[in-house]
């Protein structure tokens, strides 16, 4: 290993583990000692990473309170150094860290709030795409509707909660007291970037969730209907329910395109 590689190894070790090996490579220049000069880099490293987590997980910070949030930052930075060229990715392993590491792991809602905040960030940065409109759907002959496959907007993300994590996040954002963490059954959410570029989140009832999951899996509209129709007294009621989900999705901008089974993009063909 060359001198340059050794020097860089020592620098990284100093930042990551606090190793003192690098100090032997640094000139003492008054008024600062070599140690003080290294500490400038150590402090900058920690401040920068803390700043990213404070910004990306501000509401988790409110939930935890200053003392626990500081502990979380300290432990996460020590054990999960940044592995990506972009700081944007630094917090990606935070939900897993909170799930696995005491005392945070004793409160499942913490990992869920962190995961929700990660999803908000992903939706914010997702690719742009057109938004499907009713006129585009109405232009498709009704006989072809069973064969149509809806394409989700790239910013659409799904999130299932076993705790009142989204409700707590929302309450803290509004400076209100969060609800009890425990809930009966799971809560289902769809997160997507709205037309205004604001990231929105929408609660889904279990059957709405099932429809949207079928759409996300690329099922044709007939199978999306089939996935829920058994829950209704008659087929027409089931179909109307699915049409309702479709209307909601169009209104919210959750779909970017529609294809026909084995066919071309309908919206592109129309334009």
């Amino acid at each position, binding site marked *: 290993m060359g001198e*340059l590689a050794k020097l860089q*190894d020592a620098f990284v070790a100093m930042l990551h583990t606090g190793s003192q090996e690098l100090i032997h490579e640094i000139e003492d220049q008054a008024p*600062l000692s070599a140690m003080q000069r*290294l500490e400038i*880099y150590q402090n900058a*490293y920690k401040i920068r990473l803390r700043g990213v987590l404070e910004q990306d997980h501000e509401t988790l910070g409110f939930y935890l309170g200053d003392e626990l949030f500081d502990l979380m930052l300290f432990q996460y930075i020590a054990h999960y150094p*940044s592995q990506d060229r972009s700081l944007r990715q630094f917090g990606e392993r935070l939900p897993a860290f909170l799930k696995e590491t005491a005392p945070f792991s004793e409160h499942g809602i913490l990992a869920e709030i962190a995961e929700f905040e990660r999803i908000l960030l992903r939706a914010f*940065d*997702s690719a*742009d795409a057109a938004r499907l409109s009713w006129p585009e759907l109405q232009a498709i002959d009704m006989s072809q509707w069973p064969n149509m496959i809806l394409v989700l907007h790239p910013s659409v993300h799904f999130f299932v909660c076993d705790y009142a994590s989204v409700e707590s996040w929302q309450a803290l954002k509004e400076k209100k007291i969060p609800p009890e963490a425990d809930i009966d059954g799971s809560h289902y959410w769809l997160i997507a970037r709205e037309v205004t570029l604001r990231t929105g989140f929408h609660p889904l009832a279990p059957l709405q969730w099932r429809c949207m999951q079928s759409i996300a899996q690329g099922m044709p509209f007939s199978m999306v209907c089939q996935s829920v129709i058994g829950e209704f007294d008659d087929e027409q009621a089931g179909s109307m329910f699915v049409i309702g989900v479709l209307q909601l999705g169009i209104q919210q901008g959750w779909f970017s395109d529609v294809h026909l089974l084995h066919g071309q993009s309908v919206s592109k063909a129309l334009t």
Partner: protein
Amino acid sequence: MSVPYLGFGMGLRTCYFEQILTEQPAVDWFEIISENYFVSGGKPWHYLSQIKEQYPIVMHGVSMSIGSTDALNFDYLKQLKNTIERVNPMWVSDHICFSALGEFNSHDLLPMPYTEEALDHLTQRISQVQDYLERPMIFENVSSYLTYKQSHMTEWEFLTQLHKQTGCQFLLDINNVYVSARNHGFSAMEYLNALPKQSIAQIHLAGHQDCESHIIDTHDQPVCDAVWSLFSQFSKQLPAISTMIERDDNFPPLSALLSELEQAKALTKAHWG
């Protein structure tokens, strides 16, 4: 490589997006942080696509880590190349430093030692990167807080040699020169005077935090009088060079940055026109 003179520019930051579009301020060009646009879509691209219709754009990276001794990160370079194709910038820059090693990223601009080994390493890497990107790169001098014992030349001697060996041009950050001069006790003017004038393609002006015993390069303050003075004196030795105000934190109203741009123009009006 010769880059065109664009006039007086500014770092494009999210807090000014709306105002730039609605007010179309008298800024000649904008510099974006390359990595902020390594995303597929959303707000950054929404605004950039409109702003780049009205202003020339240059790209400035902070994560290439050109000086690292590990292998070049081609995932990063691929993202950079894709972004370059999408933005179509006037030129692309990064820093003479290392920031990542193996899987560890410091997200800082860590200084290189000023040695023959480092020169040869940078020469080889700059050539590889330019070949991959199929375009020349410009590299910025970083501010530093320490001196390596193994350095056996000054920073300006190192940059001069690097220019001779690679032909690459520099984004000269005059604030960084001032910060390093104060932190290491050398003359900022001696540094500037020694640089080959034809090597300078762009100038950054920025602010810092003065801690008395040392200075931290924070880009969160107005340009200080000493840096204005260096810029004013040094610009007399140069042909007109694209110059910009770089602000990265503690953002003031846009008008404050525009006033700084006016100051830069006023200081160079007599010799740059």
